[in-house]
């Protein structure tokens, strides 16, 4: 009897962009309950690694999500990704984003959960507004609420703490920790100095496209 497949298994991942090696022989594994913080200086390849992991960048090597290739439909139904620059529909309100997200992922509870997160982030009174008028931090909160509200087994977040106020940072850290405690795996990037004090996470350090143990 084989063990349950890992939420994320990356073996010898290599990415070359315009002939330049950006990631080289990156290998790591996330187990259920893991909260992993990917750190590294600017330009180290953190965002590139995340995009390659979810299949948005051409890459070489092996990336499996719950034992399935990362681009497969079954893998895509197991993870959610939030980029560093929130990708939102400017002509939809916050409430409409939450509902659309829940229906597209086929997870009815995600609508209520996302609204709960938005309420916790202090955006309850602005649910019927367009995100285009909101600040960077507020847009980030919406993107995070949509991702966290889905409660998928694997959550991948690029620079999720950027632009958030202190209270929201603590709230997000607690939420990510709770995801890990509930058996979900979380992979996020960040480079704030005080991040490791609020988030208890396994540290993965990326330097010049290579992962250091």
């Amino acid at each position, binding site marked *: 009897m084989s063990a349950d497949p890992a939420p994320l298994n990356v073996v010898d991942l290599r990415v070359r962009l315009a002939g330049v090696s950006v990631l080289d022989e990156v290998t790591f594994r996330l187990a259920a309950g893991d909260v992993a913080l990917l750190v590294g200086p600017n330009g180290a390849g953190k965002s590139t690694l995340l995009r390659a992991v*979810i*299949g*948005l960048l051409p890459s070489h090597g092996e990336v499996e999500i719950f034992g399935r290739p990362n681009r497969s*439909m079954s893998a*895509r*139904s197991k*993870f959610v*990704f939030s980029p560093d620059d929130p990708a939102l*529909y*400017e*002509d*939809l*309100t916050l*409430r*409409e984003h939450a*509902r*659309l997200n*829940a*229906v*597209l*992922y*086929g997870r*009815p*509870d*995600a*609508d*209520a959960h996302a609204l709960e997160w938005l309420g916790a982030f202090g955006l309850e009174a602005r649910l*019927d*507004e*367009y995100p*285009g*008028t909101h600040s960077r931090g507020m847009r980030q909160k919406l993107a995070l609420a949509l991702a966290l509200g889905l409660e998928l087994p694997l959550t991948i977040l690029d620079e999720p703490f950027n632009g958030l106020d202190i209270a929201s940072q603590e709230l997000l850290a607690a939420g990510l920790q709770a995801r890990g405690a509930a058996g979900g795996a979380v992979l996020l990037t960040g480079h704030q100095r005080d991040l490791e004090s609020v988030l208890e996470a396994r540290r993965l350090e990326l330097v010049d496209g290579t992962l250091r143990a």
Partner: protein
Amino acid sequence: MTAGVAYLRRRTVGRAMRAYRDWVGRAVGWWTIVYLIAWLVIFVIAGLETLTPLAAPLGGPRPYLVGVFVVAFMSVILARRAPPLILDRRDLFRLGLAPVPPWSVLRWRFMLKAAGLCAAGVFVGLVWTALAPALFWQATPFAAPVIGLVLVARFCAAWLVYAYRAVGLRAWHVALLGSVLSAVPYGFADALLGASPVVLVAPIVVVTLGVASVRSSLAEEWPPRFASQSLVLTQLQAMRLMQLMAGMAGFIRQAAADGGERRRLLAALYDTPGATRPSRSLPLPTVEAPVWRAFAWRALTHFWRAPWWRQVTTLSLALLAGGLAAMVGPGGGAGALGTAQPSVGALGSLFGGPLAVFAAAILVARAGTALLGPEFAVGVLPVDPYSRTLGRVAPAAAAIVFALLAASVLFGDAAGGLFSGVALVLTVLLVVEKYGSWSGAGAARWEAQLVAALLAALPAFVLAAFGVPGWTFGAQIGLLLVVSLIGV
């Protein structure tokens, strides 16, 4: 600090001009331009020499000329709520907040726009000066400078109305003053009908006072809403530029994709409702709804929040497309018009044949893309392509098929024509959505619409060529089935 602004302008403007000079030299060639200008001059001179005075001069142009000037100045009233001149985001934050008089920051842009307007006015005036002796038997040597100066005066007026709105300067006061100066003896209009140099006095005085007033309006502070409106107008300009570039690349209806954001920005510009929240919404799909319903809701919401004139245009096009599809059917003339009354049958023969099917398919594709809603990049979402296609196509199919049914009822269609029309419509919509998504170009592109129309009309073309047009309906149904099974 003012010297700093001048330094920046010299550096950036000088660099841009050098880059432009180099680009023109490489892309076109300066000798080519000189050659073309020489020919242009020759053509202009030749054209002027062909002008011969009329047998009798055209009479009574003065009221019309006064009317044109009055309309030009009255239009200032419409433009009073937005600045006629803005700073881009970079200048706004780098220079607009610097401790320098606002005039020193805005002067370059003001002069550039004023010079452009003046040049345009001089050109129009030169054309007038060339034509006036032939048409009115009048020499008008001062028309060119006067029209140039009047355009600059109108520009100054627009700025002053905007800048001093808060302190009680009313747009109609300025518009009235401009109108009076146009109509009085030796006013603006008389410059286009006489040779007296006195006509230069009014425009010179007005422009001098206007520029001085603009300068004094920017001596200390920016107008109250200038910064926020500049930011919005900068975004709108960037959006328009992107739409222009998208249009040049073939994405004709890119404007529609950005429509929601544009409406929101316009509302923000004029501080009207709709800037922060939508003024019209449809009921949300339930949380247990199938995925395709989310796509259908997205497409319908996009249409529902569009301006009324766009809604009317889209629905009219859908009605027309449905009607034409009912008339031709896949066989071309096998639909309603091919089987109905003689008067209509004549039209049927006119529109008959595979080309008619192709024309109907193109119209269905154009109408359909306006109802497909925004493009949707599935990306990493766990959404199957069939759900996306079904959801996006459903509203367009419903609207066009409804129009088709209505046309069939009106023209007394046989069931065969009705079904063949529906098959044609569905084939076109499915292909345009699937091809647009698969190619990444989007359904709004002409390429996707042409592919859809050609493919949908293929059975009619091929079977007509083989002399078996009666098989077209069956072939169309087969094609529809094949297309619906392709998951891209």
